[in-house]
Protein backbone atom coordinates (compact mmCIF):
# COMPACT_ATOMS: atom_id res chain seq x y z
CA UNK A 1 0.00 0.00 0.00
CA UNK A 2 2.82 2.36 0.69
CA UNK A 3 3.97 4.59 -2.06
CA UNK A 4 7.55 5.68 -2.22
CA UNK A 5 10.88 4.87 -3.60
CA UNK A 6 11.88 1.23 -3.09
CA UNK A 7 15.50 2.29 -3.66
CA UNK A 8 15.31 4.48 -0.58
CA UNK A 9 16.91 2.49 2.20
CA UNK A 10 16.02 4.80 5.09
CA UNK A 11 12.58 3.42 5.50
CA UNK A 12 10.83 4.91 8.47
CA UNK A 13 7.81 3.49 10.20
CA UNK A 14 4.52 5.36 10.03
CA UNK A 15 1.94 4.99 12.78
CA UNK A 16 -1.54 6.49 12.41
CA UNK A 17 -3.84 7.04 15.39
CA UNK A 18 -7.56 7.08 14.59
CA UNK A 19 -10.76 5.60 15.94
CA UNK A 20 -13.85 7.41 14.77
CA UNK A 21 -15.20 9.29 17.73
CA UNK A 22 -13.81 12.56 19.06
CA UNK A 23 -12.48 12.68 22.61
CA UNK A 24 -11.11 9.15 22.75
CA UNK A 25 -7.59 10.41 23.30
CA UNK A 26 -6.11 10.28 19.79
CA UNK A 27 -4.00 13.44 20.19
CA UNK A 28 -3.13 12.51 23.76
CA UNK A 29 -1.96 9.09 22.62
CA UNK A 30 -0.09 10.41 19.58
CA UNK A 31 1.91 12.94 21.59
CA UNK A 32 2.73 10.56 24.40
CA UNK A 33 3.50 7.56 22.18
CA UNK A 34 5.98 9.83 20.41
CA UNK A 35 7.62 10.75 23.68
CA UNK A 36 7.67 7.10 24.76
CA UNK A 37 9.50 6.22 21.54
CA UNK A 38 12.01 9.00 22.16
CA UNK A 39 12.63 7.43 25.59
CA UNK A 40 13.57 4.30 23.67
CA UNK A 41 16.22 6.31 21.84
CA UNK A 42 14.24 6.87 18.65
CA UNK A 43 13.83 10.00 16.55
CA UNK A 44 10.18 10.85 16.14
CA UNK A 45 8.08 13.24 14.08
CA UNK A 46 4.50 13.93 15.13
CA UNK A 47 2.19 15.13 12.38
CA UNK A 48 -1.19 16.60 13.15
CA UNK A 49 -3.23 15.21 10.28
CA UNK A 50 -6.49 16.31 11.87
CA UNK A 51 -6.88 18.85 9.12
CA UNK A 52 -10.15 20.33 10.24
CA UNK A 53 -9.56 20.51 13.96
CA UNK A 54 -5.89 20.46 14.77
CA UNK A 55 -4.72 20.65 18.36
CA UNK A 56 -1.81 18.31 18.77
CA UNK A 57 0.41 21.34 19.36
CA UNK A 58 -1.73 22.22 22.39
CA UNK A 59 -1.05 18.79 23.90
CA UNK A 60 2.64 19.69 23.64
CA UNK A 61 2.28 23.19 25.05
CA UNK A 62 3.04 25.05 21.81
CA UNK A 63 1.00 28.25 21.43
CA UNK A 64 1.30 29.30 17.81
CA UNK A 65 3.19 26.94 15.55
CA UNK A 66 5.18 29.03 13.08
CA UNK A 67 4.68 26.61 10.23
CA UNK A 68 1.86 24.16 9.64
CA UNK A 69 0.91 21.29 7.38
CA UNK A 70 -1.23 23.63 5.32
CA UNK A 71 1.83 25.75 4.49
CA UNK A 72 3.39 22.60 3.11
CA UNK A 73 0.33 21.42 1.24
CA UNK A 74 -0.28 24.90 -0.17
CA UNK A 75 3.33 25.18 -1.31
CA UNK A 76 4.14 28.16 0.89
CA UNK A 77 6.90 25.98 2.27
CA UNK A 78 8.84 23.90 -0.21
CA UNK A 79 10.66 21.37 1.94
CA UNK A 80 9.08 19.27 4.67
CA UNK A 81 11.98 19.98 7.03
CA UNK A 82 10.92 23.65 7.10
CA UNK A 83 7.51 22.69 8.49
CA UNK A 84 8.94 20.84 11.49
CA UNK A 85 8.83 22.79 14.74
CA UNK A 86 10.69 21.75 17.90
CA UNK A 87 8.61 20.48 20.81
CA UNK A 88 11.10 21.05 23.59
CA UNK A 89 11.37 17.28 23.96
CA UNK A 90 14.63 15.82 22.68
CA UNK A 91 14.24 13.90 19.41
CA UNK A 92 10.55 14.76 19.00
CA UNK A 93 9.53 17.18 16.24
CA UNK A 94 6.08 18.36 15.23
CA UNK A 95 4.33 19.35 12.07
CA UNK A 96 1.29 21.15 13.29
CA UNK A 97 -2.08 20.83 11.60
CA UNK A 98 -3.79 23.36 9.40
CA UNK A 99 -5.83 25.70 11.53
CA UNK A 100 -7.28 28.42 9.38
CA UNK A 101 -7.96 27.45 5.82
CA UNK A 102 -11.02 25.29 5.41
CA UNK A 103 -10.24 24.17 1.88
CA UNK A 104 -7.04 22.52 3.04
CA UNK A 105 -9.15 20.10 5.04
CA UNK A 106 -9.58 18.23 1.79
CA UNK A 107 -6.16 17.83 0.11
CA UNK A 108 -6.06 16.23 -3.30
CA UNK A 109 -4.69 12.76 -3.86
CA UNK A 110 -1.55 14.17 -5.51
CA UNK A 111 -0.92 16.41 -2.51
CA UNK A 112 -1.19 13.48 -0.13
CA UNK A 113 1.15 11.43 -2.28
CA UNK A 114 3.71 14.20 -2.38
CA UNK A 115 3.49 14.62 1.37
CA UNK A 116 3.98 10.90 1.85
CA UNK A 117 7.04 10.82 -0.38
CA UNK A 118 8.54 13.68 1.58
CA UNK A 119 7.81 11.93 4.87
CA UNK A 120 9.43 8.75 3.64
CA UNK A 121 12.54 10.65 2.63
CA UNK A 122 13.07 11.98 6.16
CA UNK A 123 15.87 10.60 8.28
CA UNK A 124 13.51 10.03 11.19
CA UNK A 125 12.67 6.58 12.54
CA UNK A 126 9.03 6.99 13.51
CA UNK A 127 6.32 9.23 12.07
CA UNK A 128 3.11 9.43 14.08
CA UNK A 129 0.02 10.75 12.31
CA UNK A 130 -2.71 12.07 14.59
CA UNK A 131 -5.89 11.56 12.57
CA UNK A 132 -9.06 13.44 13.26
CA UNK A 133 -12.42 12.09 14.32
CA UNK A 134 -14.75 10.60 11.76
CA UNK A 135 -14.38 8.41 8.71
CA UNK A 136 -13.69 10.85 5.88
CA UNK A 137 -11.68 9.54 2.93
CA UNK A 138 -8.64 11.55 4.02
CA UNK A 139 -8.60 9.93 7.41
CA UNK A 140 -9.16 6.46 5.99
CA UNK A 141 -6.41 6.95 3.41
CA UNK A 142 -3.88 8.06 5.99
CA UNK A 143 -4.86 5.09 8.14
CA UNK A 144 -4.35 2.72 5.20
CA UNK A 145 -1.02 4.28 4.27
CA UNK A 146 0.40 3.72 7.75
CA UNK A 147 2.49 0.71 8.72
CA UNK A 148 0.58 0.51 11.98
CA UNK A 149 -3.00 1.76 12.20
CA UNK A 150 -3.83 2.39 15.85
CA UNK A 151 -7.41 2.65 17.12
CA UNK A 152 -8.13 4.45 20.37
CA UNK A 153 -11.30 3.29 22.08
CA UNK A 154 -13.00 4.19 25.35
CA UNK A 155 -14.80 1.44 27.28
CA UNK A 156 -18.23 2.80 26.42
CA UNK A 157 -20.83 1.79 23.81
CA UNK A 158 -20.67 4.88 21.59
CA UNK A 159 -16.92 4.73 21.27
CA UNK A 160 -16.92 0.98 20.56
CA UNK A 161 -19.60 1.37 17.89
CA UNK A 162 -17.58 4.11 16.23
CA UNK A 163 -14.43 2.02 16.21
CA UNK A 164 -16.33 -0.77 14.45
CA UNK A 165 -17.78 1.71 11.99
CA UNK A 166 -14.27 2.98 11.39
CA UNK A 167 -12.94 -0.52 10.72
CA UNK A 168 -15.82 -1.21 8.35
CA UNK A 169 -15.16 2.03 6.47
CA UNK A 170 -11.44 1.26 6.23
CA UNK A 171 -12.33 -2.11 4.78
CA UNK A 172 -14.65 -0.89 2.13
CA UNK A 173 -12.31 1.97 1.26
CA UNK A 174 -9.55 -0.53 0.63
CA UNK A 175 -11.86 -2.93 -1.20
CA UNK A 176 -12.94 -0.17 -3.56
CA UNK A 177 -9.33 0.50 -4.42
CA UNK A 178 -8.78 -3.15 -5.30
CA UNK A 179 -11.92 -3.44 -7.40
CA UNK A 180 -11.49 -2.26 -10.95
CA UNK A 181 -14.84 -3.11 -12.43
CA UNK A 182 -17.74 -0.77 -11.95
CA UNK A 183 -20.13 -3.62 -11.11
CA UNK A 184 -17.89 -4.77 -8.25
CA UNK A 185 -17.41 -1.19 -7.06
CA UNK A 186 -21.14 -0.75 -7.03
CA UNK A 187 -21.57 -3.92 -5.02
CA UNK A 188 -19.07 -2.64 -2.43
CA UNK A 189 -20.88 0.68 -2.24
CA UNK A 190 -24.14 -1.17 -1.77
CA UNK A 191 -22.69 -3.26 1.03
CA UNK A 192 -22.17 -0.10 3.11
CA UNK A 193 -25.93 0.15 3.35
CA UNK A 194 -26.87 -2.36 6.06
CA UNK A 195 -30.30 -2.90 4.51
CA UNK A 196 -29.04 -3.70 1.03
CA UNK A 197 -31.10 -5.99 -1.17
CA UNK A 198 -28.38 -8.66 -1.30
CA UNK A 199 -28.48 -9.21 2.44
CA UNK A 200 -24.80 -8.35 2.73
CA UNK A 201 -24.14 -7.83 6.41
CA UNK A 202 -20.54 -8.75 6.95
CA UNK A 203 -17.38 -8.50 4.85
CA UNK A 204 -17.66 -12.28 4.46
CA UNK A 205 -21.02 -11.86 2.73
CA UNK A 206 -19.59 -9.16 0.51
CA UNK A 207 -16.60 -11.23 -0.50
CA UNK A 208 -18.86 -14.18 -1.27
CA UNK A 209 -21.13 -12.00 -3.36
CA UNK A 210 -18.20 -10.47 -5.23
CA UNK A 211 -16.59 -13.89 -5.74
CA UNK A 212 -19.76 -15.00 -7.51
CA UNK A 213 -19.42 -12.04 -9.88
CA UNK A 214 -15.67 -12.32 -10.30
CA UNK A 215 -13.73 -15.09 -8.50
CA UNK A 216 -10.40 -13.36 -9.09
CA UNK A 217 -11.48 -10.15 -7.40
CA UNK A 218 -13.07 -12.19 -4.61
CA UNK A 219 -9.71 -13.78 -3.88
CA UNK A 220 -8.01 -10.40 -3.96
CA UNK A 221 -10.50 -8.92 -1.52
CA UNK A 222 -9.89 -11.82 0.82
CA UNK A 223 -6.17 -11.15 0.71
CA UNK A 224 -6.71 -7.46 1.36
CA UNK A 225 -8.95 -8.34 4.28
CA UNK A 226 -6.34 -10.53 5.93
CA UNK A 227 -3.59 -7.96 5.50
CA UNK A 228 -5.44 -5.41 7.62
CA UNK A 229 -4.24 -5.71 11.20
CA UNK A 230 -5.40 -2.68 13.16
CA UNK A 231 -3.97 -2.16 16.65
CA UNK A 232 -6.30 -1.47 19.52
CA UNK A 233 -5.64 0.68 22.60
CA UNK A 234 -8.31 0.92 25.30
CA UNK A 235 -8.08 4.32 26.94
CA UNK A 236 -9.42 5.48 30.35
CA UNK A 237 -9.62 1.97 31.79
CA UNK A 238 -11.17 1.81 35.27
CA UNK A 239 -11.75 -1.90 35.89
CA UNK A 240 -10.64 -5.37 34.92
CA UNK A 241 -13.72 -5.59 32.71
CA UNK A 242 -12.47 -2.56 30.82
CA UNK A 243 -9.17 -4.33 30.23
CA UNK A 244 -11.04 -7.44 29.09
CA UNK A 245 -12.92 -5.31 26.56
CA UNK A 246 -9.83 -5.19 24.35
CA UNK A 247 -9.79 -8.99 24.13
CA UNK A 248 -13.54 -9.09 23.53
CA UNK A 249 -13.29 -6.57 20.71
CA UNK A 250 -10.45 -8.54 19.21
CA UNK A 251 -12.59 -11.69 19.26
CA UNK A 252 -15.69 -9.94 17.89
CA UNK A 253 -13.69 -8.44 15.03
CA UNK A 254 -12.20 -11.82 14.18
CA UNK A 255 -15.65 -13.39 14.02
CA UNK A 256 -17.41 -10.54 12.27
CA UNK A 257 -14.82 -9.01 9.97
CA UNK A 258 -12.54 -12.00 9.74
CA UNK A 259 -9.56 -9.85 10.57
CA UNK A 260 -6.92 -9.85 13.24
CA UNK A 261 -7.10 -6.87 15.53
CA UNK A 262 -4.06 -6.74 17.79
CA UNK A 263 -4.68 -5.61 21.34
CA UNK A 264 -1.54 -3.64 22.12
CA UNK A 265 -2.51 -2.36 25.55
CA UNK A 266 -4.56 -0.02 27.65
CA UNK A 267 -4.17 3.25 29.52
CA UNK A 268 -5.68 3.64 32.95
CA UNK A 269 -8.08 6.40 33.83
CA UNK A 270 -5.81 8.67 35.81
CA UNK A 271 -6.22 12.18 37.22
CA UNK A 272 -2.65 12.92 36.22
CA UNK A 273 -3.80 13.00 32.60
CA UNK A 274 -6.36 15.64 33.40
CA UNK A 275 -3.82 17.65 35.40
CA UNK A 276 -1.23 17.49 32.63
CA UNK A 277 -3.80 18.41 29.97
CA UNK A 278 -4.93 21.45 31.93
CA UNK A 279 -1.33 22.62 32.10
CA UNK A 280 -0.93 21.88 28.39
CA UNK A 281 1.97 19.60 29.14
CA UNK A 282 2.38 16.03 27.89
CA UNK A 283 1.72 13.38 30.52
CA UNK A 284 5.00 11.58 29.95
CA UNK A 285 7.08 14.65 30.74
CA UNK A 286 4.90 15.87 33.62
CA UNK A 287 4.05 12.63 35.39
CA UNK A 288 6.29 9.92 33.95
CA UNK A 289 5.70 7.61 36.92
CA UNK A 290 1.89 7.77 36.78
CA UNK A 291 -0.11 4.65 35.96
CA UNK A 292 -1.36 6.14 32.70
CA UNK A 293 2.19 7.03 31.64
CA UNK A 294 3.40 3.53 32.35
CA UNK A 295 0.48 2.17 30.32
CA UNK A 296 1.52 4.29 27.35
CA UNK A 297 5.14 3.19 27.64
CA UNK A 298 3.93 -0.40 27.44
CA UNK A 299 1.72 0.30 24.44
CA UNK A 300 4.66 1.96 22.68
CA UNK A 301 6.88 -1.02 23.46
CA UNK A 302 4.30 -3.47 22.12
CA UNK A 303 3.88 -1.48 18.93
CA UNK A 304 7.60 -1.02 18.36
CA UNK A 305 8.33 -4.69 19.07
CA UNK A 306 5.27 -5.92 17.14
CA UNK A 307 3.81 -7.64 20.15
CA UNK A 308 0.38 -7.67 21.75
CA UNK A 309 -1.37 -8.77 24.94
CA UNK A 310 -2.38 -12.41 25.32
CA UNK A 311 -5.38 -13.56 27.33
CA UNK A 312 -3.34 -15.17 30.08
CA UNK A 313 -2.48 -11.56 30.86
CA UNK A 314 -5.90 -11.33 32.50
CA UNK A 315 -5.06 -13.90 35.14
CA UNK A 316 -4.42 -12.04 38.34
CA UNK A 317 -4.51 -8.65 36.63
CA UNK A 318 -5.67 -6.01 39.01
CA UNK A 319 -5.46 -2.30 38.51
CA UNK A 320 -2.83 -0.60 40.58
CA UNK A 321 -4.52 1.99 42.69
Amino acid at each position, binding site marked *: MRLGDPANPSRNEIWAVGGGKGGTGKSFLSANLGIALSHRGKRVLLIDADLGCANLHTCLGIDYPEATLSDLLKGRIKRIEQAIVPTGIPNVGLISGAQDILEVANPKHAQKERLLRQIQGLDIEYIILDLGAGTSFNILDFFLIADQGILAVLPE*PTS*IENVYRFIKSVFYRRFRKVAKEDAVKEMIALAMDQKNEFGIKTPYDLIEQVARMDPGVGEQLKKEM*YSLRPKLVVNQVRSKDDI*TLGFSMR*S*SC*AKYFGITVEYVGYVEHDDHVWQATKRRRPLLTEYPASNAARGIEKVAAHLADHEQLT*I*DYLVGTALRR
Partner: protein
Amino acid sequence: MKPPREQNFYEIFEIPATATREQIEQAYELAKKTYGDASLAAYSLFDLEERKEIVRKIHLAYETLSDENRRKQYDREIMKLDIQETLPPSGSAAMQTTRGVDRPDSSGEKPPKSEPVPIVIESLTGSELRRIRESRGIPLQEIANKTRINITYLEFLEKNKYGSLPPPVYLRSYVLQYARMLGLDPIPLADRILSLVEQAKKSDQQ
Protein backbone atom coordinates in the same frame (compact mmCIF):
# COMPACT_ATOMS: atom_id res chain seq x y z
CA MET B 1 -10.67 -17.09 9.18
CA LYS B 2 -14.16 -18.49 8.82
CA PRO B 3 -17.53 -17.07 9.82
CA PRO B 4 -18.63 -18.32 13.28
CA ARG B 5 -21.19 -20.73 11.84
CA GLU B 6 -18.40 -22.63 10.11
CA GLN B 7 -15.88 -22.51 12.94
CA ASN B 8 -14.86 -25.63 14.79
CA PHE B 9 -14.60 -25.66 18.58
CA TYR B 10 -11.01 -24.47 18.60
CA GLU B 11 -11.69 -21.74 16.11
CA ILE B 12 -14.68 -20.50 18.03
CA PHE B 13 -12.38 -20.07 21.05
CA GLU B 14 -9.52 -18.74 18.89
CA ILE B 15 -7.10 -21.21 20.44
CA PRO B 16 -4.77 -23.71 18.81
CA ALA B 17 -5.76 -27.39 18.69
CA THR B 18 -2.89 -27.99 21.11
CA ALA B 19 -4.39 -25.67 23.76
CA THR B 20 -3.92 -26.67 27.39
CA ARG B 21 -6.80 -27.17 29.78
CA GLU B 22 -5.99 -23.79 31.31
CA GLN B 23 -6.10 -22.03 27.95
CA ILE B 24 -9.48 -23.59 27.24
CA GLU B 25 -10.80 -22.35 30.60
CA GLN B 26 -9.52 -18.83 29.91
CA ALA B 27 -10.93 -18.79 26.40
CA TYR B 28 -14.29 -20.02 27.70
CA GLU B 29 -14.48 -17.30 30.35
CA LEU B 30 -13.57 -14.64 27.82
CA ALA B 31 -16.02 -15.94 25.21
CA LYS B 32 -18.89 -15.94 27.73
CA LYS B 33 -18.11 -12.34 28.61
CA THR B 34 -17.68 -11.30 24.99
CA TYR B 35 -20.92 -12.74 23.63
CA GLY B 36 -23.06 -12.81 26.77
CA ASP B 37 -25.98 -10.52 27.53
CA ALA B 38 -23.99 -7.73 29.12
CA SER B 39 -21.42 -7.61 26.35
CA LEU B 40 -20.29 -4.23 25.08
CA ALA B 41 -18.05 -5.65 22.41
CA ALA B 42 -20.47 -7.81 20.42
CA TYR B 43 -23.95 -6.28 20.47
CA SER B 44 -23.37 -3.84 17.64
CA LEU B 45 -21.88 -6.45 15.31
CA PHE B 46 -24.11 -9.46 15.98
CA ASP B 47 -27.86 -9.39 16.54
CA LEU B 48 -29.46 -11.21 19.45
CA GLU B 49 -30.08 -14.41 17.49
CA GLU B 50 -26.51 -14.53 16.22
CA ARG B 51 -25.14 -13.98 19.70
CA LYS B 52 -27.36 -16.71 21.12
CA GLU B 53 -26.08 -19.05 18.46
CA ILE B 54 -22.46 -18.18 19.24
CA VAL B 55 -23.09 -18.62 22.98
CA ARG B 56 -24.70 -22.01 22.37
CA LYS B 57 -21.69 -23.08 20.37
CA ILE B 58 -19.34 -21.77 23.06
CA HIS B 59 -21.02 -23.90 25.73
CA LEU B 60 -20.99 -26.93 23.50
CA ALA B 61 -17.36 -26.34 22.63
CA TYR B 62 -16.49 -26.10 26.30
CA GLU B 63 -18.41 -29.25 27.23
CA THR B 64 -16.55 -31.15 24.55
CA LEU B 65 -13.07 -29.74 24.97
CA SER B 66 -13.09 -29.82 28.77
CA ASP B 67 -13.80 -33.55 28.78
CA GLU B 68 -10.63 -35.37 27.88
CA ASN B 69 -12.31 -38.33 26.19
CA ARG B 70 -14.79 -36.27 24.25
CA ARG B 71 -12.03 -33.94 23.17
CA LYS B 72 -9.98 -36.84 21.84
CA GLN B 73 -12.97 -38.08 19.88
CA TYR B 74 -13.68 -34.62 18.59
CA ASP B 75 -10.06 -34.15 17.54
CA ARG B 76 -10.25 -37.33 15.49
CA GLU B 77 -13.44 -36.15 13.83
CA ILE B 78 -12.18 -32.70 12.89
CA MET B 79 -9.02 -34.25 11.56
CA LYS B 80 -11.26 -36.24 9.25
CA LEU B 81 -13.17 -33.12 8.27
CA ASP B 82 -9.97 -31.23 7.54
CA ILE B 83 -8.86 -33.98 5.24
CA GLN B 84 -12.25 -34.05 3.60
CA GLU B 85 -11.92 -30.36 2.83
CA THR B 86 -8.63 -30.90 1.05
CA LEU B 87 -9.94 -33.82 -1.01
CA PRO B 88 -11.45 -33.33 -4.48
CA PRO B 89 -15.23 -33.84 -4.40
CA SER B 90 -15.47 -37.46 -5.45
CA GLY B 91 -18.45 -38.60 -3.40
CA SER B 92 -18.71 -42.29 -4.22
CA ALA B 93 -15.04 -43.14 -3.91
CA ALA B 94 -14.73 -41.33 -0.61
CA MET B 95 -17.87 -43.00 0.66
CA GLN B 96 -16.28 -46.40 0.20
CA THR B 97 -13.47 -45.37 2.46
CA THR B 98 -15.92 -44.09 5.05
CA ARG B 99 -17.67 -47.40 5.11
CA GLY B 100 -14.33 -49.12 5.24
CA VAL B 101 -13.83 -48.20 8.88
CA ASP B 102 -16.68 -50.17 10.33
CA ARG B 103 -17.44 -52.57 7.53
CA PRO B 104 -14.44 -53.40 5.37
CA ASP B 105 -15.59 -53.81 1.79
CA SER B 106 -15.60 -57.11 -0.01
CA SER B 107 -12.15 -56.67 -1.52
CA GLY B 108 -10.83 -57.04 2.00
CA GLU B 109 -8.72 -53.90 1.73
CA LYS B 110 -8.95 -52.40 5.14
CA PRO B 111 -7.39 -48.99 5.60
CA PRO B 112 -4.99 -48.83 8.53
CA LYS B 113 -6.73 -47.67 11.70
CA SER B 114 -4.53 -44.62 12.15
CA GLU B 115 -5.46 -43.22 8.77
CA PRO B 116 -8.14 -40.54 9.12
CA VAL B 117 -11.24 -41.24 7.08
CA PRO B 118 -13.28 -38.44 5.52
CA ILE B 119 -16.97 -37.89 6.17
CA VAL B 120 -18.81 -37.10 2.98
CA ILE B 121 -21.93 -35.25 4.00
CA GLU B 122 -23.46 -35.46 0.54
CA SER B 123 -23.84 -39.21 0.86
CA LEU B 124 -24.52 -39.63 4.60
CA THR B 125 -27.58 -41.50 5.85
CA GLY B 126 -29.46 -41.21 9.13
CA SER B 127 -27.92 -44.33 10.59
CA GLU B 128 -24.44 -43.09 9.70
CA LEU B 129 -25.24 -39.88 11.52
CA ARG B 130 -26.06 -41.95 14.58
CA ARG B 131 -22.65 -43.62 14.39
CA ILE B 132 -20.92 -40.25 14.09
CA ARG B 133 -22.91 -38.92 17.04
CA GLU B 134 -22.10 -41.94 19.17
CA SER B 135 -18.44 -41.78 18.24
CA ARG B 136 -18.44 -38.23 19.57
CA GLY B 137 -20.03 -39.35 22.82
CA ILE B 138 -23.08 -37.10 22.50
CA PRO B 139 -26.27 -38.75 23.83
CA LEU B 140 -29.39 -38.25 21.73
CA GLN B 141 -31.26 -37.00 24.79
CA GLU B 142 -28.68 -34.23 25.16
CA ILE B 143 -29.37 -33.03 21.64
CA ALA B 144 -33.10 -33.19 22.27
CA ASN B 145 -32.71 -31.16 25.49
CA LYS B 146 -30.49 -28.53 23.99
CA THR B 147 -32.29 -28.06 20.70
CA ARG B 148 -35.79 -28.76 22.05
CA ILE B 149 -36.37 -31.03 19.08
CA ASN B 150 -38.72 -33.89 19.89
CA ILE B 151 -36.53 -36.93 20.50
CA THR B 152 -38.88 -39.10 18.43
CA TYR B 153 -37.99 -37.07 15.35
CA LEU B 154 -34.31 -37.44 16.11
CA GLU B 155 -34.81 -41.20 16.39
CA PHE B 156 -36.70 -41.30 13.08
CA LEU B 157 -33.82 -39.42 11.48
CA GLU B 158 -31.21 -41.78 12.84
CA LYS B 159 -33.27 -44.85 11.85
CA ASN B 160 -33.58 -43.66 8.26
CA LYS B 161 -37.37 -43.22 8.65
CA TYR B 162 -37.42 -40.16 6.46
CA GLY B 163 -41.11 -40.45 5.65
CA SER B 164 -42.02 -39.87 9.33
CA LEU B 165 -40.09 -36.63 9.70
CA PRO B 166 -41.81 -33.24 10.04
CA PRO B 167 -42.41 -31.02 6.97
CA PRO B 168 -39.28 -29.60 5.28
CA VAL B 169 -39.83 -26.08 6.57
CA TYR B 170 -39.32 -27.33 10.17
CA LEU B 171 -37.03 -30.15 9.35
CA ARG B 172 -34.43 -27.90 7.81
CA SER B 173 -33.88 -25.93 11.00
CA TYR B 174 -33.87 -29.18 13.02
CA VAL B 175 -31.12 -30.64 10.89
CA LEU B 176 -29.13 -27.41 11.04
CA GLN B 177 -29.18 -27.57 14.83
CA TYR B 178 -28.44 -31.26 14.91
CA ALA B 179 -25.49 -30.75 12.58
CA ARG B 180 -24.06 -28.00 14.74
CA MET B 181 -24.30 -30.19 17.83
CA LEU B 182 -22.27 -32.80 16.00
CA GLY B 183 -19.82 -30.25 14.63
CA LEU B 184 -20.82 -31.12 11.06
CA ASP B 185 -21.28 -28.58 8.28
CA PRO B 186 -24.97 -27.66 8.78
CA ILE B 187 -26.10 -26.46 5.35
CA PRO B 188 -24.87 -29.39 3.24
CA LEU B 189 -26.27 -31.80 5.82
CA ALA B 190 -29.69 -30.12 5.74
CA ASP B 191 -29.62 -30.32 1.94
CA ARG B 192 -28.70 -33.97 2.12
CA ILE B 193 -31.47 -34.91 4.58
CA LEU B 194 -34.10 -32.98 2.67
CA SER B 195 -33.11 -34.78 -0.51
CA LEU B 196 -33.44 -38.12 1.32
CA VAL B 197 -36.94 -37.09 2.46
CA GLU B 198 -37.77 -36.18 -1.12
CA GLN B 199 -36.54 -39.58 -2.34
CA ALA B 200 -38.57 -41.38 0.34
CA LYS B 201 -41.67 -39.48 -0.71
CA LYS B 202 -41.16 -40.42 -4.35
CA SER B 203 -40.66 -44.12 -3.66
CA ASP B 204 -43.80 -44.10 -1.46
CA GLN B 205 -45.79 -42.73 -4.35
CA GLN B 206 -44.53 -45.35 -6.77
